[in-house]
């Protein structure tokens, strides 16, 4: 079964990515985690995202476009990246979620992917 595992990080950690004094520790932790995850053979895809300040949000209300700077919700933690994993069960994915650096300072959300839609007609 396929799952998406999403890493939510607090603002401070997005700042750490750019801070020369802290970026080494930040990326080091992620590279170790990603290396171990890649080796598990579960990864189907995934990306890291640039910080929430680079986000643009679009809505169409009553036919009118609304374009807004920043993420859709101003929450304490923001999406920092994701992986798609093919895993035998949720328990396996939760183990990987708990190992991620984000689990210790932010949170990690795991969602099963929808099964393929039947082709209409």
């Amino acid at each position, binding site marked *: 079964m396929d799952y998406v595992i999403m890493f939510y990080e607090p603002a401070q950690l997005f700042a750490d990515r750019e801070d020369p004094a802290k970026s080494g520790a930040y990326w*080091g932790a992620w590279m170790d*985690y*990603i290396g*171990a995850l890649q*080796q598990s053979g579960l990864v189907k895809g995934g990306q890291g995202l640039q910080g929430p300040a680079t986000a643009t949000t679009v809505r169409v209300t009553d036919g009118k476009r609304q374009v807004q700077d920043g993420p859709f919700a101003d929450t304490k933690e923001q999406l920092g990246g994701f992986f798609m994993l093919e895993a035998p069960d949720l*328990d396996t994915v939760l183990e990987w979620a*708990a190992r991620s650096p984000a689990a210790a300072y932010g949170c990690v959300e795991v969602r099963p992917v929808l099964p393929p839609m039947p082709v209409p007609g």
Partner: protein
Amino acid sequence: MQDDAPTAGASDPRRAAEKAARASYGRLVAYLSARSRDVAGAEDALADAFRAALETWPVRGVPERPEAWLLTVARRGLIDAARRATTRSDSAAMLVQAAEEAEESRMQTGTDDFPDERLKLLFVCAHPAIDPAARTPLMLQTVLGLDAARIAAAFLTSPAAMGQRLVRAKARIRDAGLRFEVPERPDWQDRLAAVLEAVYAAYGAGWEDVTGTDPHRAGLAGEAIDLARLLTALVPEEPEALGLLALLLHCEARRPARRGVDGAFVALAEQDTALWLVPLQREAEEALRRAARMGRIGRFQMEAAIQSVHALRGRSGRTEWAAVAMLHDALAGLSPTVGVLVSRAAAHAEVHGALAGLDLLDALPADAVKSYQPYWALRAHLLTRSGDAAAARQAYGLAIGLSEDPAVRDFLRRRMPQ
């Protein structure tokens, strides 16, 4: 620091009251469900009484007859429930009858002395027809009255999923009519092994929660030791139950030494033995001696014996690695799990050098160790010792990536060769 050790707090009135409430609760759930096969019904009947006990006993003290206290409150609830019940009326009636029998038996003897059916309950929880993943949670809930959310956190599952798993297991006991019995030979050994395994898993679920303070990963180490102690009381002639208790006590004795003052991870070899809890180690040694006198060796006694050799460092100042390695060889013959084989490699590396340890690691199947953190942590350490810094760095990276505990990640990072 000793206050943090869950088992060292017998003098703490709160912990004592909670223990008494859990023991009485377990006895009553066992008694009522053994007669009705309705575990969920028995739990429901006792839930309010148990909650009230957990609130009032720590404040007002444990009543003189704790079971009578719970039973009186529960019986009223049961009779009400039986009146309301339309569907499962059979089991509701059986539950009321069981409660009345318990009450009568108490009256006649003038004590709380109705039969202790907790052993049967433990065997039902670890029954081969019950999903192995549900066995430990089921024990923790029915025998000790822990709630699903607390169990779920320890097992890294959502409370909803854990709740469902427990409901399914209890429905299976009732609907498939699993027998509440103490198995006879020839099943005895296998069935007992499943019970021991489930208690051991409860301790494992609490192992990572070193300080016992993280509400998200609330450890179950104290509860697991309670179960192990209960088991040795219920089957005093079984050396493996004593072996399991000895193993858990030895591990628990080292808990205060597993973190430095700054919260940093401290490896076993570097632990300050002055922080080890000597009373727990003594109790472990006594349990192991009693087991040894019965002359039937087993996996848990062997594991406890290994911990016992480590504990000796507290007195002698040094570790007898040759003895540790020899015991691991014997243990690997009994129970060749990946965990045992990796520790065996570590012990052999101490006796015969890093290369001997690496040879043993190389012999393990790649698939089994791919995502096994202790394998990579040991491999990294041995590669460093053998002078292969590049390969060591790679192994450290994997070990760090596989660690869940930030303190362990920091520890490994500090050790990684530059």
